[in-house]
């Protein structure tokens, strides 16, 4: 517990983490505002008969995950960053390893801290985004059901797993550039993984494609995966990456 708290302190001390939180809080609501306004004007103009898509609000939350990605990457890369100045061996990783009883514990604490931080972020952003969407669309929005709560849980799980995926990849690369580039590109409007689903049905079982099933209902793909199954597939992927990363981390010189 103490270890997780100290990892949370470390996160809180990084300006990049706060920037990531700001990004996570802003992107989804702002995009939701734009898209809902457009839908609203279309409905009012009569060009769209409404009701709004079942995915309104949730599609935007899929974009907002970029904040979680940045947080996940920075949580690990900050240990290794020696940018800005001098001396050869004063990276934070050395202090961290000296302070922690074992490398495995350090990693578990870090993963725990990232998960906690991102889960809170995801909850907050989901509430804000859905409020914005429903507020704007009013009667045109899809009625709230028990499924909605389940979908919000899906968003939270998706964000947490994506952040952990980002951390896991950074364990291998140490520098944050590659994981940031790959994962941000994969969050864009047309993602590489989505394109791959056009080429082979197997691509639907990639972590993000499977994970989206937890809260997106109208995914443009012939392959149907139930929400829980999608979550399980994504979880398996992330577990694999984290364990592999942990093994590499364990064996490597600091």
């Amino acid at each position, binding site marked *: 517990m103490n270890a997780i708290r100290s990892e949370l302190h470390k996160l809180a001390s990084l300006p990049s983490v706060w920037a990531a939180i700001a990004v996570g809080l802003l992107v989804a609501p702002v995009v939701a505002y734009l898209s809902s306004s457009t839908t609203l004007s279309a409905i009012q103009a009569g060009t769209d008969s409404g009701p709004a898509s079942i995915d309104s609000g949730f599609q935007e939350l899929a974009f907002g995950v970029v904040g979680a990605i940045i947080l996940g990457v920075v949580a690990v890369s900050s240990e290794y960053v*020696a940018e800005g*100045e*001098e*001396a*050869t061996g004063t990276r934070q990783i050395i202090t961290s390893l000296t302070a922690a009883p074992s490398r495995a514990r350090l990693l578990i604490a870090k993963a725990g801290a990232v998960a906690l931080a991102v889960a809170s972020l995801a909850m907050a952003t989901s509430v804000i985004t859905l409020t914005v969407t429903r507020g704007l669309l009013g009667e045109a929005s899809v009625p709230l059901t028990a499924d909605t709560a389940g979908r919000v849980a899906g968003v939270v799980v998706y964000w947490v797993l994506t952040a952990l995926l980002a951390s896991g990849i950074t364990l291998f690369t140490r520098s944050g550039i590659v994981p940031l580039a790959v994962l941000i590109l994969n969050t864009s409007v047309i993602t590489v993984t989505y394109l791959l689903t056009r080429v082979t049905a197997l691509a639907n079982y990639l972590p993000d494609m499977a994970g989206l099933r937890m809260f997106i209902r109208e995914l443009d793909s012939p392959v149907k995966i139930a929400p829980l199954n999608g979550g399980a597939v994504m979880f398996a992927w992330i577990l694999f990456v984290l364990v592999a990363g942990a093994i590499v981390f364990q064996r490597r010189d600091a």
Partner: protein
Amino acid sequence: MIAIEHVSKRRGSAQILSDVSFTARPGRVTGFLGPNGAGKSSTLRILLGLDRAQEGTALVCGKPFAELPRPLMTVGAVLDGSGAHRSRTGRAHLRWVAASNGLPRSRIDEVVDVVGLGDAARKRVGTYSLGMGRRLALAAALLGDPDVLVLDEPVNGLDPEGIRWIRTFLKERAASGRTVLLSSHLMGELAETVDDVVVINHGRIASRGTLAEVTGRHRTLEDAFFALTSGQSTVGTEGEAL
């Protein structure tokens, strides 16, 4: 020849340097002495054009540093660390530095030999020890065979062999008519190396003169230094006290 006159610098509300003036003459090793935070690095950075002073001038061979056409042929500077990107090899670093001032590539082998970097020059700078990094910085400074050498805490990180080597090296350079200015807070070592001393404290010059003048009637330079900077001079010095 280095001439610093009435240099003052403010950063925000802090007065970092106040009316700093001194010269470093050719043929002599000049030591710039002061505790951490006294303003030694700030002065050197202003001399080398890295920072701007609000008042005063800092001239090298009569010109401001930025106006020297091929700076590395006049001034070699050894500042913190290695001054090199960690992913590059030592040789790659020296290659670009040499190219930037039109210096021939043969100089690279020569300076690597002089500083004793050897095979390590082919390895990435990130793998260097502190001492090797300093040697690389010195090698880069020597590429143009400059008349003036400016060094900020040169013995920082060197082993005893390295310290003795650099002391001899700097004295030889001065003896051949060149100017050497080095800053340090290690008084014992400085006293072995320098001919002239400039003492700085809290951004002001406390004393300047030859080593003998500044040490005055104190037993060692260190005693003189503490006397000068604490303001309680029980034994007089012959250097200019300001």
